[in-house]
């Protein structure tokens, strides 16, 4: 006879008490039923990084979902206080949201430039737009590819990575690195565009346009994928605004809010583009399919932006005249926000008059977007939870910093 006392599930450190139920069988006895606590642990093929989700399930339906984060905390904000100058903070800011490093650097450089009231040359603005939009395409390619894997289609992931390689080649040609660039510096850029960049970028644009259509045919409009993602994880408009989500997740819920147009910075107001909004074409407004198709359409818009910026690129310096030692005045503080690939990335900098910042706080969009997961996962199935978490498109580097 097997010793069943050891077959108890281990108790997890949670303050959720499991609810019991009773089922009456036909013989008259009652069977006690219990909700099950499952750990979708830090190591899992589908949580995008080291995220621990504690799920309370009743059969296959989720009753409660409690995320635990902090497995990738690297004390980035504390490190920034000990840097000898503001320029040294840029490699650290890169590594926050490592899938979308250019937008991180730009947000921080914007913050410091506004703090010091520096104007950057026109050419720098245009090149920054090109780099950020290419980075947005690269980041959305990761999001779309891994979303395909989460839903079981293994092939789109490799197709998106082939396209992403071409973008990373463009970046490597310009600044020397493929993932963590240290390119957008305070007051300008580190290198000017190499001679072959414009031609190669134009080749990429003409190569990539039909690929978006192919990815849509293969994944987005595939009926099985639509059935998996439509009406799943619906995030209503008011809940989204109350939880302060931003980026494609907010636009997927039907809210027409894009920081590049509504809190404009750089030269976005001079270029011709439209923020993409989810309209509930395949199900409800704000479901996972809407968020996915918003990302696909944003890639197209970014491609348009890159094309326009390349054609209207002015000549000029790549570095503004900044003081040798960046020393903002004492007690100066600023919060600047920008639209990163995941949403509103903000930096709050407090300076104390020395060359190193007193406090740098990063408002990471992935952290805030993840907070809405327990709300929208209630009532879904476990198979849906993976898709809902994937559609939020988190990068744990930004959630934990």
């Amino acid at each position: 006879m097997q010793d069943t006392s050891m077959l108890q599930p281990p108790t997890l450190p949670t303050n959720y008490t499991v609810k019991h139920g009773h089922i009456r069988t036909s013989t008259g006895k009652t069977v006690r039923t219990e909700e099950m606590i499952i750990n979708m642990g830090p190591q899992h093929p589908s949580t995008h990084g080291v995220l621990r989700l504690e799920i309370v399930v009743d059969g296959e339906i989720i009753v409660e979902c409690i995320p635990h984060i902090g497995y990738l905390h690297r004390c980035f904000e504390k490190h920034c206080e000990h840097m000898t100058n503001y320029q040294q903070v840029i490699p650290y800011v890169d590594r926050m949201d490592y899938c979308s490093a250019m937008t991180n650097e730009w947000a921080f450089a914007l913050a410091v430039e506004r703090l010091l009231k520096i104007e950057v040359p026109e050419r720098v603005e245009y090149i920054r737009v090109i780099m950020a939009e290419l980075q947005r395409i690269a980041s959305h390619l990761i999001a779309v590819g891994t979303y395909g894997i989460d839903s079981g289609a293994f092939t789109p992931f490799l197709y998106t990575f082939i396209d992403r390689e071409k973008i990373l080649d463009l970046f490597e040609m310009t600044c020397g690195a493929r993932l963590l660039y240290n390119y957008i510096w305070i007051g300008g850029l580190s290198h000017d565009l190499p001679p072959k960049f414009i031609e190669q970028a134009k080749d990429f644009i003409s190569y990539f346009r039909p690929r978006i259509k192919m990815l849509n045919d293969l994944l987005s409009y595939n009926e099985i994928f639509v059935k998996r993602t439509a009406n799943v994880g619906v995030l209503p408009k008011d809940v989204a605004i109350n939880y302060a989500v931003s980026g494609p997740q907010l636009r997927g819920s039907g809210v027409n809010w894009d920081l590049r147009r509504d809190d404009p910075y750089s030269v976005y107001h001079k270029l011709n583009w439209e923020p993409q909004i989810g309209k509930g074409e395949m199900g409800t407004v704000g479901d996972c399919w809407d968020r996915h198709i918003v990302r696909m359409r944003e890639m197209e818009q970014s491609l348009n932006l890159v094309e326009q910026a390349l054609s209207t690129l002015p000549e000029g310096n790549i570095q503004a005249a900044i003081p040798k030692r960046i020393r903002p005045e004492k007690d100066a503080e600023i919060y600047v926000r920008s639209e990163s690939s995941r949403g509103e990335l903000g930096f709050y900098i407090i300076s104390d008059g020395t060359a190193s910042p007193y406090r740098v706080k990063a408002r990471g969009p992935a952290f805030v977007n993840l907070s809405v997961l327990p709300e929208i996962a209630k009532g879904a199935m476990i198979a849906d939870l993976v898709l809902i978490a994937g559609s939020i498109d988190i990068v744990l580097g930004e959630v934990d910093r």
Partner: protein
Amino acid sequence: MSAIAKYFYNIFHSLYTVVVGMKITFPHLFTRSATVQYPTVKMKIPERARNRLYVNIDDCIGCDQCAMACPVDCITIETIKSTPDVDLGLTSKNTKKRLYIPRFDIDIAKCCYCGLCVWPCPTECIVMTDVYEFSEFDRQNLIYSFSNMTEDEVGAATARLKKYEEEQAAKKAAAKATSTPPATGTAVSPLPTPVQKSEPPTK
């Protein structure tokens, strides 16, 4: 659409999208692969690539700018002043070298490949090469020492510096004995004062 019509539409639409998907993946069976057979074939690295660091120690003047610029503190430099009777030679840019460099260690495992050390170097002796295959079995092998001074040379240089400083101190003492003492209150300290961090701003 009524429920029955929707049912039939769903079935045919599913079959149609499945066939479209299969039609997209089938031609890929006959296209060239996008990958190369590393390590027999290696991809071409662009010229601005930021990979392993290299220091041309003959050009280094020991200014410590790269160590100060590094955000992760992976460069350690120790210098010994040279005496006026020794000629350390010129760098490739024809600047006079005034410091011995007994220790120039870069912990390449700590390096974050940001390239911030390359910009402030006045002689461009620290560069990022295109070498990216440098893994080791022992982590201690990843601390690269670029200095080429032997122990005897270091000992000799330290001894020479000490002797020179003693001579200078003796000379100064002799000069002080023969001249009038300077006016009080204008003592100049030879070392710079450490930077005081100001009080945190009160909110």
